[in-house]
């Protein structure tokens, strides 16, 4: 259903071209949930923005192709792209406080994309109430005319999900949908996303820095570092038998109840590199415990480590 082929995104900046995403290829089948995991600056959100072409086109150089149900999204005219946004593919953003417009009531904001795409003509109000019901906003009739500031963070995020679902998109892009929320609210939103996936067979791409959250919801996981995918595969394999030194490092850096209590955590030395000044070869090599000579020279080639499990690491090749 969605095929991302060799996607690269370069931003024009004062310091020259900065490569935020390099050679990313991903594949998503209908009704599946894919997780993209990475730290800040890994390029995970940029991939989502590139799919919907939300990046400012005059400052950005896109390479590669994104094929959605047979159409190349990069080849579409701006008008044709507008017909895709919200209707075929829609997005849930991280911060509910800044996503909603504070001067329009919730009902208007949910109805907006229905009006733009000309769906449910004359029945917009019913559809809005139905959506609010579906995402779990209690007593929709009373709340439909309320404004965002009258909603709690969790309820705002539900409203945003209702906006995203309004036109029954086939693909939902969720960029850190629970990061701004408390754990108990996070659990509610995760259950809601799972329910949407099951009842409507909506495919979901979840971008998060939280490995455990990805483990909870996703069937497949791609791990990104400094703009590249370093490892991808079925969620169980990535979490239980990771092969890339970065994935392993990330997993062991998370405290786990019952396992690491009071002990020193394994750390990855150093910090995430500056995208404007990436190390040559494998971008992870200055922090990698296994790095050798070839790692500093050449970008690794993909290695099949198992069924649908691929990683980019020179050490694994030898």
């Amino acid at each position: 259903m969605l095929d991302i082929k060799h996607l690269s995104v370069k931003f024009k900046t004062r310091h020259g071209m900065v490569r935020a995403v390099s050679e990313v290829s991903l594949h998503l089948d209908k009704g599946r949930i894919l997780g993209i995991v990475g730290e800040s600056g890994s390029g995970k959100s940029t991939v989502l923005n590139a799919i919907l072409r939300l990046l400012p086109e005059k400052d950005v150089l896109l390479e590669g192709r994104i094929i959605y149900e047979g159409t190349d999204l990069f080849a579409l005219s701006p008008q044709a792209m507008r017909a895709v946004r919200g209707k075929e593919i829609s997005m849930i953003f991280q911060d509910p406080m800044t996503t909603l417009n504070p001067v329009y009531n919730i009902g208007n904001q949910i109805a907006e994309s229905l009006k733009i795409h000309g769906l449910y003509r004359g029945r917009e109000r019913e559809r809005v109430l139905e959506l609010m019901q579906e995402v779990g906003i209690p007593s929709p009739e009373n709340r439909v005319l309320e404004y965002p500031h009258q909603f709690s963070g969790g309820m705002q995020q539900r409203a945003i999900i209702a906006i995203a679902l309004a036109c029954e998109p086939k693909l939902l892009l969720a960029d850190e949908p629970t990061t701004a929320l408390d754990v108990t609210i996070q659990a509610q939103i995760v259950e809601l996303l799972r329910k949407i996936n099951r009842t409507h067979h909506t495919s979901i791409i979840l971008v998060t820095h939280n490995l455990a959250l990805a483990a909870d919801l996703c069937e497949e996981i791609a791990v990104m570092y400094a703009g590249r995918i370093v490892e991808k595969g079925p969620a169980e394999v990535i979490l239980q038998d990771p092969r890339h030194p970065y994935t392993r490092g990330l997993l062991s850096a998370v405290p786990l109840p019952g396992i690491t209590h009071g002990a020193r955590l394994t750390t990855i030395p150093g910090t995430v590199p500056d995208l404007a000044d990436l190390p040559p070869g494998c971008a992870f090599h200055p922090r990698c415990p296994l790095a050798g000579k070839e790692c500093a020279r050449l970008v690794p080639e993909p290695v099949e480590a198992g069924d649908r499990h691929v990683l980019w690491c020179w050490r694994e090749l030898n």
Partner: protein
Amino acid sequence: MRAGNLLEVNGLKKYFPVQRSLASRLFGQRPGWLKAVDGVDLFIREGETLGLVGESGSGKSTLGRTVVGLYEATAGEVRFEGRPVKELSPQERKSFRQKVQMIFQNPYSSLNPRKTVRQILDVPLRMRGVPGPERPSEMEELLERVGLSRWHLNQYPHQLSGGQRQRIGIARALAVHPRFIVADEPVSALDVSVQAQIINLLMDLQEQFRLTYLFIAHDINVVHHISNRIAVMYLGRVVEIAGSEELLTAPRHPYTKALISAIPEISKIRRRERILLEGTIPSPLNPPPGCCFQTRCPEKKDPVCTQIVPTLKDVGGDHFVACHLY
């Protein structure tokens, strides 16, 4: 005060006045109160780490700030080294402020952007009375302790990464030789790989300097990792305190149970039954009567839960719960 306790908090309350509109004031309505901390009792033993968890709005940061004296308590007392902080003489108060330090959540906003690392570290050393000529060597030693080098002295905060800035925040707190540190979400703004470095650093420093920590965070896995005991806060009250292993494996309070079951787990093998709570935390402007958790509690019993405020009860094994079920 029991022997071995470095700090005790008794019946601590911190209310913030809320300005009502002019019209309502004209009609004689009294100003409202936001009850951020509403009657907290706890103690921290010398050399231990007490973790404090809770959702946003539960009052955990306000509690931390009131304990170090950044906020004045509305009621109740804080006792440090056996003496009520309120009764300290000005001289003793100065020494209290050196013994008690704070590490803040956001390393991007808690360092002055116009000062170099050298200037940032100079102030606490001067406060401790370190003479000028000795300060450079003290600074180098401090930086080394927190995993940085002399080379960083002339840098400004914007030239440092998030993890490095948090290390400066820690060095600044250590500079005055504190006994007790309140760390308010010290790793939440950091990436996972850097978070682990800072957690390790805090644990090493605790061992080296026999520090006592109040570690505030919303990530229960992190808090569990570093703490000896954990206190759970909800709507300005502590609802449960227990040893950190006990709290995670055998929580008693219905809120703690739900909170722990909501943490996503990496291993899918031993997944807990998830308890989904309805709704959200009530506003501290208008807390419900009786138990603070009664509006969302799946095990609520009328009328006791809706009328009587439960107090912390000892359920054995250093485990305290504020719930009418026990």
